[in-house]
């Protein structure tokens, strides 16, 4: 028997559902056995784990499910292998149906390295009930959001209630916090060739937006220590009017037994900067083929199966995770499972990829640390910007 070992990081990536798929695959492919391995819940720990294995050229995993920020590095390090040789024309079909952004993220130096497994993005959650109560329409720009939050905060007058909850601790989510308004101004950090094209005024605008909101108490002062989970809990407890978070949070708000915002949750696209576009941060998980796999062809075939729209449809229906294929957004069954799908689609269409570079880890560190420090007030916006640009220049020189 050929054993194919698939790495599916943690419980959030639903190895249980993929097991069912694997069973199906085994049934139709005699002689192939599939084992699913996992390590820890967070992307950070999974990366730690994988980097040890792959650094040691370990063949124990054939297929890897990776956080979308990782493939570029892994490919540069030759830890994962391109899929082109195994896919042929199917490659085009998959890319065509996938979210447009995947053309950027999955093709590395022209080769297809990953296939989408699950998609995700940053969304703006809001309290439908509160906005409705005060007759406020869901905000389309940050100014509107600020106004809405201030009105409601004043009216409600609850000390625990926050205007906007977002991530400001030096974690990966804060990279998005920096990029959201930056992208909204139509700017990128890197050009297509991986050269730094940081637009300082736009970056400054971006940071100033947050410090402004903090000053006006729409965002709490301690945002510098807020992590993704804190935002979830705050909003879930009914203590935030707006919250920026990944798509998974919707299930928590809507389905958790102790949620206080059940049926009061709305989703909108990320507000835009003045005159800007609605841009959001792409997340999700990708399939990749380990370069140290001893069964590359079989694994590629398995990946094709796992990444096929049919399989994704199954996962989506069973797990309520956002599908990476556009066709599924019009699927009635899927819409039934994910009621907010129609709100999610426009946001996803505006999704941007975080900088694609082999040195993403450093880039991410710079962005998150400096942004967090600015949000925490230990650096001024100017100092923060200076720090960001100097360091990025050094890293990407």
């Amino acid at each position, binding site marked *: 028997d050929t054993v194919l070992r698939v790495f599916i990081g943690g419980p959030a990536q639903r190895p249980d559902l993929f097991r069912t798929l694997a069973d199906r695959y085994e049934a139709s492919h005699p002689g192939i056995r599939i084992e699913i391995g996992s390590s820890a819940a*967070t992307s950070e720990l999974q990366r730690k784990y994988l980097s040890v294995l792959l650094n040691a050229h370990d063949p124990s995993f054939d297929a890897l499910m990776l956080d979308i920020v990782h493939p570029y590095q892994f490919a540069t390090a030759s830890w994962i292998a391109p899929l082109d040789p195994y896919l042929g024309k199917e490659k085009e079909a998959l890319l065509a149906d996938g979210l447009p952004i995947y053309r950027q993220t999955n093709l590395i130096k022209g080769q297809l390295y990953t296939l989408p497994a699950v998609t995700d993005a940053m969304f703006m959650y809001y309290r439908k009930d509160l906005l409705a109560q005060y007759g406020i329409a869901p905000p389309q720009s940050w100014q509107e959001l600020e106004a809405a939050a201030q009105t409601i905060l004043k009216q409600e007058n609850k000390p625990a209630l926050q205007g906007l909850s977002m991530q400001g601790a030096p974690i990966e989510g804060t990279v998005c916090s920096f990029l959201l308004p930056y992208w909204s101004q139509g700017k990128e950090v890197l050009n297509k060739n991986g050269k730094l094209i940081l637009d300082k005024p736009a970056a400054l605008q971006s940071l100033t937006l947050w410090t402004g909101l903090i000053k006006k108490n729409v965002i709490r002062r301690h945002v510098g220590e807020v992590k993704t989970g804190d935002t979830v809990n705050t909003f879930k407890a009914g203590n935030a009017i707006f919250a920026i978070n990944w798509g998974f949070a919707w299930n928590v708000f809507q389905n958790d037994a102790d949620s206080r915002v059940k049926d009061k949750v709305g989703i909108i696209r990320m507000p835009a900067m003045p005159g800007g576009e609605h841009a959001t941060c792409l997340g999700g998980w990708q399939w990749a083929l380990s370069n140290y796999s001893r069964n590359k062809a079989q694994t590629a075939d398995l990946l094709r199966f796992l990444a096929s729209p049919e399989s994704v449809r199954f996962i989506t229906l069973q797990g309520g995770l956002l599908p990476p294929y556009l066709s599924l957004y019009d699927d009635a069954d899927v819409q039934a499972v994910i009621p907010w799908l129609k709100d999610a689609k426009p946001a996803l269409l505006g999704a941007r990829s975080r900088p694609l570079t082999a040195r993403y880890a450093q880039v991410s560190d710079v962005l998150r640390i400096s942004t967090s420090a600015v949000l925490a007030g230990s650096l001024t916006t100017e100092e923060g910007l200076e720090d960001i640009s100097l360091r990025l220049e050094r890293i990407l020189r």
Partner: protein
Amino acid sequence: MLKLPLRWIAAAVLLINGFFPALWILLTSFKSDIELAQTPITWLPQHPSLNNYLHAFSDQPLLLFLGNSFAVALLSTLLTLFAATGAAYTLTRLQLRHRDLILILLVAVAMFPPATLLVPLFEIMRGLGLINTYGALILPYAVQSLPVCTLVLASFFQQVPKDIENAAMLDGCTRLQALYRIVLPLSAPGVFTAGILAFVNAWDEFLLALALNAAPGSRTLPVGILLYQGEFTFPWPVISAALVVAIVPLAILIVLFQERVISGLTTGGIKG
């Protein structure tokens, strides 16, 4: 007059310092997620429930983690004690050339940040075919604890009056017998302490455990408990419950054990 209350204050501070976090964990384990998100925070659980404990046991094989951790910690502790006993005895009681060099090399083992050793360690363990087994952890843990255990044991061996060991040798013991039958029992507090140090080192360790032993069946506790968290959420109540299950019995067990180790073991042996 002023000194007495000062001493009691100091004692109280130390006690609170020791207990508070564990107590907080205990309280948290009876709270709900939502209660934690409240401001101002609550101290006592509003609606105490054992739900988190149920979750702790049903969401992940907590007992399996406990068992794994226990096995790994115990075996590595025994291995450490075995190796450290020999080393400590050699360093303190036998004539040895390059003693200081050996000593410094031993201590130096503790001076490399483990993170940088991770990849080569993985390669070694793979070479030994130990990846994803207890062995992959037992060996490095034993090494990690070896320096401190050796020095602790050595400082105890040195406290054992030489004449007691001499008496044993006159009674017909080889040095080895004297070590195991006389010196070691008389160093019981030291052996025990070294044991706890090694045990808890192993019990605590996360990084190696994650990298070298990720198989679901042999995962240890710190790695296992982190599985309760979501990708972005950290459910303190359930994790607290798991921690309580993991820590409190262990700590009490150790204390009970420790209470049985009498102090002043060598009194009555020597005149002078």
